[in-house]
């Protein structure tokens, strides 16, 4: 009888119970993921339209200055060579901004420390942030691809290769973004890393030119630049033409994902710069 009374009594008379989440806190993970997604789509003017406009500007400017449109790069007209690069730049930029900007915003609002008390394991936090980065990357990539389609874009030649490199690319940058976000106490740091680390890495990764156009010394750096393999892989997926070796690209991206996610997991485990 007492059991029955306990069940029917109001919630404030019940004894607190331990909540059981099972192996993975699916509800928490999903909630966190949705929050990140909503955050990035709420400002769709900045996150989706602006990258498309920027890519369109690049295409316009390049198509105006190239006088002999017969010039081939890797056997492709220059615009067909350039457009996959622009798509991947938009994806990587967005993925890099996703987690880091969200974290630094939380820090400036003083709610980032709440991560220390949410019932999410470090693994779940990494997955939720990374998932949001991948979603953001894919969506901006699709928008830019669609916008550039009439100007020399093309239907992907190898959809599965394309999908792999888009996902792994936005995952790598998303994980890097988490490390940066955890490290950066203020906006200044974020912008500095974006300008001094991210931009040079991306711009020297064969987006606008093939690597044999570079001086010999810089070519070695390019071979060591993981972003080069992502750019090349995406270009291979869209046009079917490659500058490097896609299989090495798969290998390099897998190693990057593994190393970066291990670092992210470790940082969330020790609560780097948010748990004291």
């Amino acid at each position, binding site marked *: 009888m007492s059991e029955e009374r306990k069940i029917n009594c109001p919630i404030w008379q019940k004894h607190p119970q331990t909540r059981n989440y099972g192996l993975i806190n699916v509800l928490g993970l999903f909630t966190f993921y949705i929050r990140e997604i909503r955050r990035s789509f709420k400002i769709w003017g900045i996150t989706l339209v*602006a990258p498309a406009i920027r890519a369109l500007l690049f295409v316009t400017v390049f198509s*105006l200055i190239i006088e002999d449109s017969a010039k081939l790069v890797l056997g492709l007209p220059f615009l067909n060579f350039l457009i996959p690069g622009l798509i991947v730049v938009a994806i990587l930029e967005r993925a890099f901004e996703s987690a880091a900007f969200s974290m630094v915003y939380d820090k400036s609002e003083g709610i980032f420390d709440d991560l220390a008390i949410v019932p999410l394991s470090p693994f779940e936090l990494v997955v939720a942030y990374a998932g949001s980065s991948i979603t953001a990357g894919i969506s901006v990539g699709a928008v830019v691809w669609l916008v550039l389609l009439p100007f020399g874009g093309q239907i992907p030649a190898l959809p599965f290769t394309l999908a792999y490199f888009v996902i792994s690319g936005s995952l790598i940058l998303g994980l890097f973004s988490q490390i940066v976000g955890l490290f950066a106490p203020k906006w200044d740091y974020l912008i500095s890393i974006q300008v*001094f680390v991210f931009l040079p890495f991306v711009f020297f990764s064969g987006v*606008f030119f093939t690597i044999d156009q570079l001086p010999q010394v810089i070519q070695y750096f390019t071979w060591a630049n993981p972003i080069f393999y992502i750019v090349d892989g995406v270009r291979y997926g869209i046009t079917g033409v490659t500058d490097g070796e896609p299989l090495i690209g798969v290998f390099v991206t897998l190693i990057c994902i593994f190393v970066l996610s291990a670092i992210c997991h470790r940082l969330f485990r020790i609560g780097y710069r948010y748990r004291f």
Partner: protein
Amino acid sequence: MNKNNSIFSTSPVVRSIGIVNWRGLWTLYLAEVKRFYKMRSQTLIAPVITTLLFLIIFLLALDGAEKKIGDLTFSVFLSPGLIMMSILQSSFANTSSSILVSKVQGNIVDTLMSPITPIELTVAYVAGGLTRGLLVGFLSTISICIFVNIHIQHYFIILFYAFGSSMMLSLLGLIGGIWAKKFDHIAAMTNFIIVPLSFLSGTFYSVELLPQTWQNLVWFNPFFYAIDGFRYGFINRMDGDLWVGMLIITILNVILFMLACRILTIGYKLKN
């Protein structure tokens, strides 16, 4: 006996400021300069790096070392445009973000309450934007000189165009910052107006290359005059006319200055 009186026992005196409140003007200007200098890696060095990256990309992608526009190498043609682009964007960013940050944080009230007239306010903010724009332009020029062999032909014209265009964008930034409610608005203005206008203004190409319809549109783009005239100072050649460019920039500056003063006087979106 008066000498022994402390400040508490004397009656308050009206402070007279004179026609121009030089001290207030200088203080606000210094505040503006210190604001951006504090974040110098972001406000001074980052634009320079971006300019250099653009230069390298365009040269590599187009085999720019050999490419020629008329009798000039492409790099010499491109450099002044890139310098001007960095000046324009920095000037706009400085005034707009300054106003918006103080609006969001709520301390714009203190600036409005201080004994400074709207004209002095405008001058101080614009001078801050000018300082940043010209500093960035100077640094970009020096760093580009390392890579590209550019010669300055007309110092006065370069100075005039750098000054005039930087002032124009500072005024635009001031008006934009007052109009904007959120950071999104400023980002939208930068992404949808400032960046497209500066990309499509002849930074990267000579206007002669454009199709006829575009050529006609370019004459309505004020950024075109800024970049074209600035480039004339380096390469002694321009698409438009030197005096028309100067006239248009001056007229735009006067109009924008009056507009900014008017907005600050009636307190549009600032006082209610």
